[in-house]
């Protein structure tokens, strides 16, 4: 029991970390039809910005999450401006050029982070009281893992409510399904796009902030997270947030247990599982998108 429980928690922690990135990625793709490499960059900016405010202080959980939220808002505003200035030009591009353009943006963010914060490893302390371990089923697990899992589940539930149950969700689904029709109905689609993009950035940034105490902070974390998030989003079906949630859990558990049973090749289980799933279902496990849900 104990031998299975810890990898289960580790797998779920990883899954929820990646889902925090993947949720915004999937939402933005579902509505704007942009697969955004730079999303990982904003996740990383969330981490670094939170780090800058907190440094090595162990804050109370309330203060900590307030700062994370604030960083999310700041980056969302930057994201909105960026969407207006640059991202908007991507919409008309050919698929391939669009991918390359967002990748270029990721490089710019990476380069900027290197320039501002340097190449060295940084670490952020956990909020007070959340740094230790908790005993469940005779197994000591890191308390902060539970925070991350809870955050992932909360984001999944709230996003589901927002998109499927709220009036705003109706507009989002309409804009995702048929932007021309939506705009003919008198809804300002470009503003919806800006808001969705900013909201996606917000999700990435708070994901980064929440996950920061659990990570080694380096400028390369953006690319390693974005590729895992891509994997999750693609396996879950592009634009399908619920699918991304399930895919994150599946791949997280495969990776976590794969590392235990095949210790000589850690890290390969994730990609192998992803390749295998996509070999059987080339367009992901759940093909439906936001608009058809």
């Amino acid at each position, binding site marked *: 029991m104990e031998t299975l429980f810890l990898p289960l928690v580790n797998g779920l922690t990883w899954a929820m970390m990646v889902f925090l990135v993947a949720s915004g990625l999937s939402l933005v793709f579902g509505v704007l039809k942009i*697969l955004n490499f730079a999303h990982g960059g904003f996740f990383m900016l969330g981490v670094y910005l939170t780090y800058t405010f907190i440094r090595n202080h162990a804050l109370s959980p309330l203060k900590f999450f307030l700062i994370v939220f604030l960083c999310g808002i700041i980056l969302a505003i930057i994201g909105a401006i960026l969407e207006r200035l*640059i991202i908007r*030009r991507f*919409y*008309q*591009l*050919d*698929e*391939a*050029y669009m*991918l*390359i*353009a967002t*990748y*270029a*943006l*990721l*490089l*710019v*963010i*990476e*380069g*900027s982070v*290197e*320039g501002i914060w340097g*190449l060295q490893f940084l670490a952020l302390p956990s909020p007070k009281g959340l740094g230790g371990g908790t005993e469940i089923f005779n197994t000591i697990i890191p308390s902060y893992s539970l925070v991350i899992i809870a955050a992932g589940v909360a984001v999944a539930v709230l996003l589901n409510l927002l998109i499927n149950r709220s009036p705003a969700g109706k507009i989002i689904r309409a804009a995702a399904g048929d932007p021309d029709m939506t705009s003919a109905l008198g809804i300002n689609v470009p503003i919806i796009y800006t808001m969705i993009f900013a909201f996606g950035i917000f999700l990435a940034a708070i994901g980064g902030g929440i996950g920061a105490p659990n990570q080694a902070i380096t400028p390369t974390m953006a*690319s390693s997270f974005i*590729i895992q998030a*891509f*994997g999750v989003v*693609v396996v879950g079906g*592009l634009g399908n947030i619920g699918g991304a949630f399930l895919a994150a859990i599946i791949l997280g558990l495969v990776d976590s247990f794969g590392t235990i049973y095949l210790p*000589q*090749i*850690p*890290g*390969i289980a994730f*990609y*192998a599982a*992803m*390749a295998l799933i*996509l*070999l059987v279902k*080339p*367009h*992901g496990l759940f093909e439906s998108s936001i608009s058809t849900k």
Partner: protein
Amino acid sequence: MFRQLITKNFILLRLATAAIIIVLALSLPLWANPGITFRASLVLIYILFAASFNQLFNYTGLISFGQAAYFATGAYVAALYVKSGASLSGGIILAVIAGGLVAAFLGYISLRASGIYFAILTLALGQIVYQVIFKWPATGGENGLADIPRGTINLGLAQISLASPVSYYYLILICVSLGLFILWAVTHSNFGRILMSIKQNHVRASFLGINVRLYQLISFAIAGSIAGLAGAVYGPLTGVLMPEMATWIYSTTPILLTLMGGANFFWGPATGAVIFGIFEYLTRAMTGMSSLIMGLLLLTVVLAFPGGILGLVTSWLIGKPSIKKSSRNEGSAAASKLMPGGDVINE
């Protein structure tokens, strides 16, 4: 007046340019210092690497984010072979085969999907190659391979030593020219025309009885083996191989070079590699800024002049667009409004 003169003698101009480039490439080690010869060797390798990407991008309509995996496969296979004491010629042949086989295998999986899914799959599968190199003791794992000898080339009768930078430069020149010739032949052949048709409208192509996926797979394998060839000569040049060269981050180098030079031209990747090589040489004092500069460059190219350097030059020389850009999502007004390439410069 000057422009008219150029337009009239366009073929002559191209021949003259080609002649100058050939003379420069052949004579370079004779007048350049060893540092520049080394950089030129690297540029040659990047020319081939980028051209292998463009074989897929412009001539087949596939975007691969995993080209570095095949480059690394070739590099490691050749390096391990040479380190075992065998000649480099055998290593190069093995590298070409290995690059092609790995690409064929991973391409087969990726090609089950299309569009963005395909791109992400090439990326993820390339990462598997990286993970294998990184974890496998035989490849030196995370430490990579060092002290890779250049060895000799076995010509049956004579053994030629490649130890000197100059002789190694010429070996690279020969390999790169050969690789470029193969790519040129493929893209300009009847086979290449079918690939072009698939790029321009794959639905129509399959309704002309063309087995679209098979053609794409063959093209993918060819691009993989050419990337393997470029990788094969890379290891002995630098003497060191690191597993990171297989990651998707390195797969974007050929993308940048191709777009910068002009993806719609066969010589676009080469132009991009040369210009970037010179640019890198001039800014060699500035370190640590590379990803910022790469990103800004790439962004500028994609948004401001998607036709690349050759696109700008030809539109200036001829005064009209010579760039062709297919529209995969034909009929979509949004997509054709700002197709990278021709239509923008057209107006």
